């Protein structure tokens, strides 16, 4: 080490969440009742503002098989495009009935996952730009050494997506499609389908954030 370097701490290295990640992060999925308050995939309460949506999909490995042990978390702005965080500097009013965050595990049999949330509003980007409505996603599982970060965009936001600085920073335009969730309606409920392919054909774009 050079004596003239100032001392910074190295980030603690990542390790896989392992096959039993549910015990710690979703104990009820492992049939463990310990905590009074458990985190889950329901981001909305009756008072939450905004359009209700369900996000759902599967996560596939390099052979195209669904991961049945994967854990997903999402982080998103409220209906007005504000993050419920002190670090949001937009100066807009935040929805007090929205945490913006949820966590779920894929179904142990089918690999399906889902979140009940609201469609986020547009958030400011850097240098006066505007980001299209989007939701940050991170994946953890056995065999994933460091959490995989991606983003969900919406297929009914064609113009906003075309101007999104992060989507446009992906050099290969065809790969941008891997981040677009597909809207359907099921029994009057708005559902966006978002499949994630960790490896192989149509591999999802993952970000170094």
């Amino acid at each position, binding site marked *: 080490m050079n004596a003239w370097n100032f001392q910074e701490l190295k980030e*603690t290295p990542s390790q896989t969440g392992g096959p039993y990640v549910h015990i*710690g992060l979703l104990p009820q999925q492992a049939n463990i009742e310990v905590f009074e308050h458990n985190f889950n995939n329901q981001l909305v309460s009756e008072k939450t503002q905004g359009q209700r949506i369900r996000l759902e999909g599967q996560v596939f490995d390099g052979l195209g098989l669904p991961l049945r042990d994967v854990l997903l978390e999402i982080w998103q702005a409220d209906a007005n495009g504000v993050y419920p965080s002190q670090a949001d500097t937009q100066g807009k009013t935040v929805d007090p009935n929205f945490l913006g965050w949820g966590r779920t595990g894929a179904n142990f049999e089918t690999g399906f996952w889902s979140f009940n949330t609201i469609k986020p509003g547009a958030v400011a980007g850097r240098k006066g730009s505007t980001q299209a409505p989007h939701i940050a996603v991170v994946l953890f599982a056995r065999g994933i*050494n460091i959490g995989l970060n991606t983003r969900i965009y919406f297929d009914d936001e064609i113009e906003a997506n075309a101007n999104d600085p992060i989507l446009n920073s992906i050099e290969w335009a065809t790969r941008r499609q891997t981040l677009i969730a597909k809207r359907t309606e099921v029994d009057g409920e708005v559902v966006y389908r978002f499949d994630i392919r960790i490896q192989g054909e149509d591999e999802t774009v993952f970000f170094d954030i």
Partner: protein
Amino acid sequence: MLIHTLGAYAQRNTDDHPPAYTPGYKTSVLRSPKNALISINETLTEVTSPHFSPSLFGPKDNDLILNYAKDGLPVGERIIVHGYVRDQFGHPVKNALLEVWQANASGRYRHPNDKFIGAMDPNFGGCGRILTDENGFFIFRTIKPGPYPWRNRINEWRPAHVHFSLIADGWAQRLISQFYFEGDTLIDTCPILKTIPSEEQRRALIALEDKNNFIESDSRCYRFDIHLRGRRATYFENDLT
């Protein structure tokens, strides 16, 4: 006037972490992207993060010895683990959510998919959580986990370890990892620990016994510190909006 406000998180040094593809840990082979990660200029999405109210936490949440105890106490070595969460610039990370999970003293997890013959402990659940305090300090009490076999090569044993997860001030700080215990002879050959290329960084995951702290005739104590990414200053023109 030059004003110091907070900007983006300093870029992650990927050499400090395992790569995605690590064939010695076989499961990573089909679960690693082949394409390079796309590096992005952080936005508000990456510098914000959920906040957790202390009201969500119960008094036994950080006590794995008591939080699942039914008819008695769990079997095994009673230990206390404590440490500080700091960012890379040395600032304490306050009110961060630290979640931990682990096997019991036999190396068995309370999980429907764990088929290891090691005995289940009826009084041990294996999970806990803590909010760090104003100094970034955390403490929890548990049973020292046992090593256990797993399918990688035929005879592969994990060193004793505790999994941990952190949610702090920014989404870019999100981290999941595992810590190990000083003196465990399985550490040197563990394929999962060896996914980390740097020896210095592998050592950073080993909790050391804190001999000055203990509960007499009751518990030993381990010290483990955690370092997360820190934010740069905007006077270097990395404005987020």
